[in-house]
């Protein structure tokens, strides 16, 4: 994780972490997962610390997940969303940051529509900053919880074959997952039409195909991205129907498989678009498992940044 010497530590992108740091976070997430199964789902690890959830873009599950993670570590949490805050009165992010500093906060969890905002924020505040999704850039804790889920379900990460299907170009989830998976030694295959792939995708060290059938034969994990309906209007692809025919996990494709891969999705699912409704029901335990893993992984990240393991 990035840190100025002896300054607060941040988690801005997956590239802040090397392989050992990722594995260490996943190991400790396993221990934190146990806390959520206890009769008293709370440990005093971050007692007396204050964490601000600064969500300047709509989010339900990530915000709830961070809030729950912080509360289960006994930190105090302030939620700051666009609607009721001064940001909607035109206060700039920089002014908001100054206000937060004046309140004596230990960490800011930020979600913002523009790439790079969390990095900018680190220059304005004197506390830890955690990126909870910035534009089309990164969503590091999502990648960590996805890796956690793969590791718990399949027992390994190294050599794992992961196919990521959908709108790679616009997806911070895909970007963070690609980096994270490559770092821990997994193989990544991107499955998308050329119009939904980033430029110079070959330089990312991944395989690329436009055939879902080929990907299904190859992969251990099938990671479906959510198709954002507004992209259709941008003419990135002809129609939803067309997308589903080519890249949707349909019942016909699914039943043809002898060896079924682990199906994952960051949620919320567009039933009948990325995945047929029947299959979505079948694989639901994994997808809700990703949500539970999210709390454990975020506890591990908060504890690592604020628990002072590098003091």
């Amino acid at each position: 994780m990035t840190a100025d010497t002896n300054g607060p530590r941040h988690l801005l992108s997956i590239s802040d972490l090397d392989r050992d740091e990722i594995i260490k976070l996943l190991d400790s997430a396993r221990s934190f997962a146990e806390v959520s199964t206890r009769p008293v789902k709370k440990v005093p690890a971050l007692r007396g610390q204050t964490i601000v959830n600064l969500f300047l873009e709509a989010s339900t599950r990530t915000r709830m997940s961070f809030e729950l993670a912080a509360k289960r570590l006994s930190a105090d949490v302030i939620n700051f969303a666009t609607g009721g805050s001064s940001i909607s009165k035109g206060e700039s992010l920089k002014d908001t940051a100054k206000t937060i500093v004046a309140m004596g906060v230990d960490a800011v969890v930020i979600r913002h529509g523009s790439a790079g905002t969390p990095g900018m924020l680190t220059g304005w505040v004197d506390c830890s900053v955690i990126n909870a999704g910035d534009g089309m850039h990164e969503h590091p804790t999502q990648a960590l919880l996805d890796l956690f889920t793969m590791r718990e379900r399949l027992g390994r990460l190294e050599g794992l074959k992961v196919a990521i299907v959908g709108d790679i170009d616009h997806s911070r989830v895909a970007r963070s997952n690609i980096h994270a998976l490559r770092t821990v030694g997994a193989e990544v295959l991107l499955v998308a039409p050329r119009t939904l792939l980033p430029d110079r995708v070959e330089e990312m060290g991944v395989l690329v195909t436009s055939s879902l059938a080929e990907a299904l034969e190859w992969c251990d994990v099938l990671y479906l991205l959510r198709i954002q309906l507004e992209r259709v209007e941008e003419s990135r692809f002809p129609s939803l129907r067309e997308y589903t025919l080519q890249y949707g996990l349909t019942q016909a494709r699914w039943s043809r498989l002898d060896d079924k891969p682990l199906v994952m999705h960051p949620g919320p699912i567009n039933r009948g678009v990325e995945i047929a409704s029947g299959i979505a029901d079948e694989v639901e335990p994994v997808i809700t498992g990703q949500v539970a893993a999210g709390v454990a992984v975020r506890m591990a990240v908060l504890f690592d940044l604020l628990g002072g393991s590098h003091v």
Partner: protein
Amino acid sequence: MAFEARARLLDEEDIARIVRRISHEILERNKGSKNLALVGIRTRGVTLAGRLARTIEGIEGQKVEVGALDIAMYRDDFATRGASEVGPTRIEFDINDKKVVIVDDVLYTGRTTRAAMDALMDFGRPQVIQLAVLVDRGHRELPVRADYVGKNIPTSGDEKVKVSLEEIDGTDMVEIGEER
């Protein structure tokens, strides 16, 4: 920093005798193994708890519950020592109304014991909590004492007591020395 041993205080046989003695003491104090549970503090406390449980089972012919406790999330010294790695806690039995013996390798300031008791309380309300340690090296900073002690070893603050156990370190012994 590397540990430099000055003297070996306990060897394999000493430790085996201690485990047998403490097993008997636990049974005597609690009038048998009914409702008894042993909870080891990770990592060497868990190993010792396992040995005590097997010995007690051998004497009483009755299964004793064993749990593992990681106290990293309950420590009070993050600011000075930094958070250590968080290991798994496993208490897969109901601790309510149990007689719980916390097992640790070395008793020193008492802060680990305090953290372990806090952690344990989050799992329920034991009838009684007792403490068994292989070595008590003194220098308490909290009002904590052990109910069962393998060996009292007077030490100075800059000395270090190193416990090695077969299952983890390949050999059974307790040494005293310095960190250099």
